[in-house]
């Protein structure tokens, strides 16, 4: 089983978390949304699998490169 870290591509604030631990995801599914400079930037799953961890909460500031969630890759 491989874990894949979902990272923020921008510095900003977590606006909305759309999934919860245990949810199944496919490539392109929106996991959460980061807000930066008045723009909403969706963070999407890059591989199919299951969310095993969400490491941030709504309203939390994040830096570029921070880990936001972990996807347990589908076998």
């Amino acid at each position, binding site marked *: 089983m491989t874990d894949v870290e979902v990272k923020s*591509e*921008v*510095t*900003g*604030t977590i606006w909305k978390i759309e999934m919860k631990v245990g949810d199944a995801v496919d490539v392109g599914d929106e996991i959460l949304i980061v*807000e*930066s*400079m*008045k*723009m909403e*930037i969706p963070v999407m799953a890059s591989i199919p699998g299951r969310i095993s961890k969400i490491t941030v909460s709504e309203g939390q*500031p994040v830096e*570029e490169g921070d880990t936001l969630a972990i996807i347990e890759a589908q076998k």
Partner: protein
Amino acid sequence: MFRKVLIANRGVVATRIARTLESMGIEWVAVHSKVDEDLPYVRGANEAYCLGAATPRESYLNYDAILSAIKRSQCDAVHPGYGFLSEDPNFARLVTDSGVRLIGPRPLDVETMGNKIRARDRMEGAGIPVLRASKRVPEDVENLKEYAEHVGFPMLVKAAAGGGGIGMQRVSDESKLSIAVEKTRQLSARAFGDGTVYLEQYLEEPRHIEFQMVGDGRGGVRPIYERDCSIQRRHQKVIEETPAPKIDRKACDAMGERLADVLSDWNYESLGTVEMLMGRDGSFYFLEMNTRLQVEHGITEAVTGLDLVEMQIAVAAGKDLADTCPPKIIRKGHAIELRIYAEDPVRFFPSAGKLIKFQPPKMTNVRVETPFAEGCLITPYYDPTLALVIVHGSDRLGAIKLAREALNAFSIEGVKTNIPFLHLVLSSDEFHGCRYHTTIGEQLSKKVA
């Protein structure tokens, strides 16, 4: 004339307004958030008040903090700039009720034009062409089809409140409509506290042409030419120019005059911009009206020699338009504005960080508006504008050449910028041949990489 004006805004527009106030011999007051306290114009201000923490809600949208600064500074007028509270009629009323003049239109005009459905109805009633649109779609809508029928596919699902294309979605057929309506409703409710949604005819590859207006509140309204703002990304303007190239000049000028007549009937006061879409066949359709100073006002100033902020302040102080506006406004040459954003040039993602290097061009006929200097922090809390570069050439080709030289001379390190994207647009056949429309930005951006 006013003695002291508080600028209820930040960044580029705060520095822009401060400059005119200084030239008019009026004292000005800065307000700022905690993270903006080291910006050069805040440090240089004679009087500055901290409003609160970084987020707009705690600072630049914070009624209580701003009203308290107004009181403490004993200013006699407030300039709201653009964005933030500039189109908030409640703020305008609160300021006015405290006995201080708000430099802008009457709160009722701000309120009416701030709702796109009402604005559209008002313009349509005045005989200005509009796109086919539905009424407000109620939250518990049973038969969406009825609303969509008269509009036709493809259509846009739009939020009635706010601006900047937030929540706007193109829908090509009925099967995707109800999901789109729900999504727009959610986004709009969150961004503007108003989930009102309506449907509007989708115009294929339109150009965005807007008309600058100024009125004195007593029926005096003057059109100050048009601006072409078709070059956008994510529905946000990136490059603007005036005059609009390759346009039916007579029809364009006639539209400006017609809009001025409409605003005159309303006794419109202050600056305002009527945004129109132009279809491929050259017909104009009302899009929305901005009841405030516009970001891109600088290109109009470049070609006319006017100071629009000064005119806005003068009419707010009760001056007649005839005393502040020359009898004939002459437009000379061609001006282009480039918005320098802190963002990835391909995906347009914002890029925060410290300006390790920041050297704007110093050239003749090139005006740079920026609140930043080397060492400043670009934070993720506000819009990504680093600078506005306004170039003035004797003709369009000259202006394009100057724009490219100015970009080459602009040196920025520490954050990503959209300069490569701006270069790409300026050198594209589409831009040179005026074969462009409001979605060209997304198409061209794919070529940056």
